[in-house]
């Protein structure tokens, strides 16, 4: 049984292992142990509602496979996924994007009408709630795990809207070359940052944004002057990210005009009111099931801030009180008479 829950300091080793073996680039989750530990602490404070982090909460969720806990202390960690929500993109610093606009260069006299795409540096997504740091162990990529992990965050946002902005964004990893470079980077950022894509990516995870302000070109960039390869990958998701990308589109996200400044990857955006998981979420009561619950597949969660937990189960959506197994109740840390929140899976 998979459960999504707040990350805890005891998960450090498990998260570290996951991150270092991840295929996908995780700009927002460093693989340096001390930075990772700070990040977990910040998440703990966020889930505890501590005033000190108010307005810059960074929630970090892990997905644990409880069926693996039997062989505890095995070399395989039971942490099979990790995902985050930054309440406020940029976390107090500017959040950089390119915004792709089109200027029309038009001559009435010569009857020429050219649409010229231009990239403007923008900070306009700064402060919006951002889904980030999604990573999942390879063998869990198929099936429900990825969707459970990703949508648990949306459910959490819906339950605690007071922490979040009215729109949520997600930066999707852009298309990379076979050797983990980026054509977009090679045609644009490399000229100014004077480093390869991996280095830029690495520094953006561990440094303040000062170096971006110092090295990033300040004038708008004419897209027709970029290489054909760079133009081709602009706004396209990486294959490794495409399942998650599709999932978010189904959830009601749409592509925005924003691109990642490093790899040109797309940014998805949704108003909270348009996100299906939020729209379809309901509170219910539960009781102990006498047999394995049947019915449509639902995500069920403990809708409290510090004990937020989410699992998948079958249930009868027409009943106001649904049946949960003992192990589910335990995994969700529910007590008698607690409310639960459910949403169709």
């Amino acid at each position: 049984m998979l459960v999504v829950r707040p990350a805890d300091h005891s998960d450090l080793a498990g998260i570290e292992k996951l991150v270092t073996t991840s295929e996908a680039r995780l700009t927002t989750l460093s693989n340096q142990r001390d930075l990772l530990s700070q990040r977990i602490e910040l998440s703990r404070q966020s889930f505890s509602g501590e005033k000190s982090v108010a307005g810059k909460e960074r929630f970090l969720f892990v997905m644990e496979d409880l069926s693996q806990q039997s062989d505890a202390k095995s070399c395989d960690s039971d942490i099979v996924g990790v995902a985050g929500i930054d309440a406020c993109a940029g976390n107090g610093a500017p959040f950089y994007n390119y915004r792709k606009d089109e200027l029309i260069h038009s001559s009435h006299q010569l009857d020429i009408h050219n649409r010229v795409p231009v990239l403007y540096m923008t900070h306009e997504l700064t402060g919006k709630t951002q889904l980030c740091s999604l990573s999942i162990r390879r063998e869990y990529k198929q099936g429900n795990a990825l969707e459970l992990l990703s949508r648990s965050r949306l459910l959490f946002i819906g339950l605690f809207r007071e922490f979040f902005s009215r729109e949520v964004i997600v930066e999707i990893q852009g298309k990379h070359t076979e050797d983990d470079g980026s054509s977009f980077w090679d045609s644009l950022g490399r000229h100014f940052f004077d480093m390869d894509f991996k280095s830029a990516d690495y520094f953006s995870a561990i440094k303040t944004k000062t170096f971006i302000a110092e090295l990033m070109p300040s004038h708008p960039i004419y897209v027709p002057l970029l290489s054909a390869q760079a133009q081709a990958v602009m706004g396209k998701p990486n294959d490794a990210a495409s399942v998650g990308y599709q999932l978010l589109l189904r959830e009601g996200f749409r592509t925005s005009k924003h691109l990642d400044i490093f790899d040109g990857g797309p940014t998805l955006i949704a108003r909270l009111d348009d996100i299906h998981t939020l729209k379809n979420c309901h509170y219910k009561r539960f009781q102990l099931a006498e047999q394995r619950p049947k019915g449509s597949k639902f995500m069920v969660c403990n809708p409290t801030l510090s004990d937020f937990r989410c699992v998948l189960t079958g249930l009868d959506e027409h009943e106001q009180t649904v049946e949960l197994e003992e192990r589910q109740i335990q995994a969700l840390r529910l007590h008698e008479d607690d409310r639960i929140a459910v949403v169709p899976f």
Partner: protein
Amino acid sequence: MIVIRPIEQKDLGDLMRMAENAGSGLTTLPANEELLKAKITSSEESFSQKTDERHRFYMFALEDTDAGQIAGVCGLEAAVGLGDVWYNYRVSTTVNASSELGIHKQTPTLYLTNDMTGCSELCSLFLDADYRKGNNGRLLSKCRFLFLAQFAHLFSQKVFAEMRGYSDENGVSPFWESLGRKFFSLEFTRADYLTGVGQKSFIAELMPKYPIYLPFLSEEAQQIVGKTHDNTRPALAMLKSEGFNFNGLVDIFDAGPLVEAFVENIRAVRQSRLVTVEVGTAKPFDDSDRDPLLVSNTQYEDFRVTLFNKSSLVGKLLLISKEQAEYLKVNTGDQVRIVSLREPRLDSERTPSEAGSSKKLHGQDPTEFRTQEH
């Protein structure tokens, strides 16, 4: 005898023939009879002072009085960009540096600029192939400096010339291919033609306005920014020897260099002086002389320039024949302006030439430039 004089309507036929020979590189001399006629009219109205001073355009013709035809022309614009807009790119340096990461990156960057607005321009130089020998080329080009010296109050303090940019053996400009083509959706020749005939709205409408980082252009385009066409090297060398400098301004279409000088610093202006004419018996001009005198009268409407051997100068008197006096439109006792056609050899006390001075700034070696003006 070869003499420079203001162009006249009767020269239209000769001029049209020359324009047809010139090809597309000569923006300001399009092979269009109507436009050439308009240019001649414009020049005539300037020499006759009908046009406002700031809007005058002077065209000088090299006449072979024996053959009874003109064989070359050159132009002089009192001030550019006052009626329309005069565009250049300025090659500038952008530095991005992070001390934290130890990175320091210089990026050459092109800024669209109108900084030549109001300056005077040397333009439209063209000499028939048959006459490209002896001192004709220098006479034709430098006659304008005596006009500038004599009537400096009618011109800007700064004068410039745009040099035709580099293109390969097929006439392809790598700069245009890498930049202009992507925005103008035109052929280079058409853009060049429209500019030549003064229809410039399309530049404001189609031109990229934001600065262009040079590394976005092709390698070849980057390398030829500020380089001239092979055919243009002699003209550029001549201007440089007169004190013109490349200061980072280039043409927006082909990135050919713009060279500029303050009028008072031009060698032929600075060294020119007035002497008195004495008409009498004089030897005819010997064109095999490598170092003759450039001599103009001091008249505006009837401006004339021709060459004399230095032996004609005796003290402060210039001894000339009746025929020469007739073509120069002077009489005994009149003043003429004279200067060595070529710069006298440097002696050790002279100011070092500024040649090569902009080398460092823009990474190009201007000594490599050669030219023909646009």
